[in-house]
């Protein structure tokens, strides 16, 4: 079993005061709280932090931890407690800790024991006698833009605790099929009631929450229900105006480019974004693509344009010439 250096986890010195430890905990908890941080690995760091704080904030546990350190039980990175080691921590009585000790490391367990496999859960404790509501499970589900537009049916598998024949929560691979309606957006939360971890002692199951992650589409960028398409046009289409076929999520539509259109100009196709109440819009941003002159005739033509059309794109900068 690997040892855990709680002082290192909390970034405090071995002689840190209780106040320093509390401050360090608060600072790191704000930084790595899974509900606040989007940094990768935040959840693991937060759990490790909770475990470290559980030990270091409690004078008795900290004293025991320090004693074991001095005793040399941590030599060689491997932890082996003294043969007659008995922690004063009483987990079986409950109410000893507010955090969920099921999340703690083997190392913690070897030192302080375990609280009967039953703890308070993330959504707040729920107790009817010895019944506990199961934990919620959070997962992400990747959905393509076309699927988000028209809806889809997805089958997915998750490892979730279910009660076995003896009523013991046991990990099981569960396959679920869910119909995702048209018009889900990126970050959309979906609740599957009762599909989380099994409750204990007759407690309700937790819920499964899915978060939609829209897969990048090569053509459309997405912001909420609005989508944006960058549309390449030629200089003459920009100058003269044109009616063009443009792709939308629902198929091709005609779009009229006004005469004297400019690069970066934004046109709106109302209601052509992701469906909803109200539906989003599609924006079309114009990109003028400049053609290559492939022959001397081409170049001659452009020179003629240059002579005939008095045009100075830098007129407003007063640096022309």
């Amino acid at each position, binding site marked *: 079993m690997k040892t855990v250096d709680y002082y290192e986890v909390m970034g405090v010195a071995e002689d840190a005061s209780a106040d320093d430890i509390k401050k360090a905990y*608060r600072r790191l*908890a*704000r930084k790595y*709280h899974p*509900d*606040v941080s989007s940094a990768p690995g935040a959840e693991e760091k*937060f759990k490790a932090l*909770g475990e470290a704080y559980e030990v270091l904030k409690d004078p008795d546990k900290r004293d025991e931890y320090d004693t074991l350190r001095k005793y040399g039980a941590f030599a060689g990175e491997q932890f082996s407690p003294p043969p007659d080691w008995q922690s004063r921590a009483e987990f079986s009585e409950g109410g000893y800790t*507010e955090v969920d000790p099921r999340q703690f490391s083997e190392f913690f367990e070897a030192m302080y024991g375990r609280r009967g496999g039953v703890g308070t859960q*993330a*959504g*707040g*404790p*729920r107790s009817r006698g010895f019944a506990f*509501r199961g934990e*919620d499970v959070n997962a992400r589900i990747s959905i393509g833009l076309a699927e988000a537009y028209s809806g889809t049916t997805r*089958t997915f598998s998750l490892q979730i605790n279910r009660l076995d024949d003896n009523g013991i929560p046991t990990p099981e691979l*569960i*396959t*679920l*099929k*869910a*119909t*995702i*309606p048209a018009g*889900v957006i*990126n*970050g*959309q*939360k*979906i*609740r*599957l*009631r009762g*599909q989380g971890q099994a409750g204990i002692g007759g407690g309700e199951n937790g*819920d499964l*929450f*899915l978060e939609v992650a829209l897969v*990048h589409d090569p053509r459309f*960028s*997405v*912001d*909420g229900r609005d989508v*944006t398409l*960058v549309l*390449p046009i030629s200089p003459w289409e920009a100058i003269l105006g044109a009616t063009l076929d443009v792709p939308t999520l629902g198929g091709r539509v005609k779009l009229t480019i006004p005469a004297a259109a400019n*690069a*970066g100009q934004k046109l709106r196709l109302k209601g052509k974004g992701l469906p909803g*109440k109200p539906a989003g819009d599609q924006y079309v*941003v114009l*990109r003028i*693509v400049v053609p290559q002159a492939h022959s001397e005739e081409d170049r001659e033509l452009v020179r003629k344009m240059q002579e005939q059309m008095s045009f100075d794109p830098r007129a407003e900068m007063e640096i022309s010439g």
Partner: protein
Amino acid sequence: MNDKSVEIELADDSTPYEMRELCEMCAVRAELVVEMVEAGILEPSGSAPAGWRFGVRSIIRLRKAQRLRRDLDINLSGIALALDLLDDLDQMRERAQALERQLQQLTDEA
């Protein structure tokens, strides 16, 4: 066959749940829900606690609020502020990402 079709609920603007159901699902007392509504953490439809209706969004925010309160020791108005700022941050991130991609498409070699 293990394939099980399950009902889903979207976190949208619909508000199907009464106070009693919300309290049961989140294992909280009604008094706390009232305080959370007053702090602006939860925004039910309807008026007066008896007429309030909550949606999946409320369930998610309430559970988040419970975790933040327990883990970070923030009071209810602080939690309301944090949740609102986190929502704003998500929106900003998505907007920034969309604009970055558009800029890339505008400047890329065709």
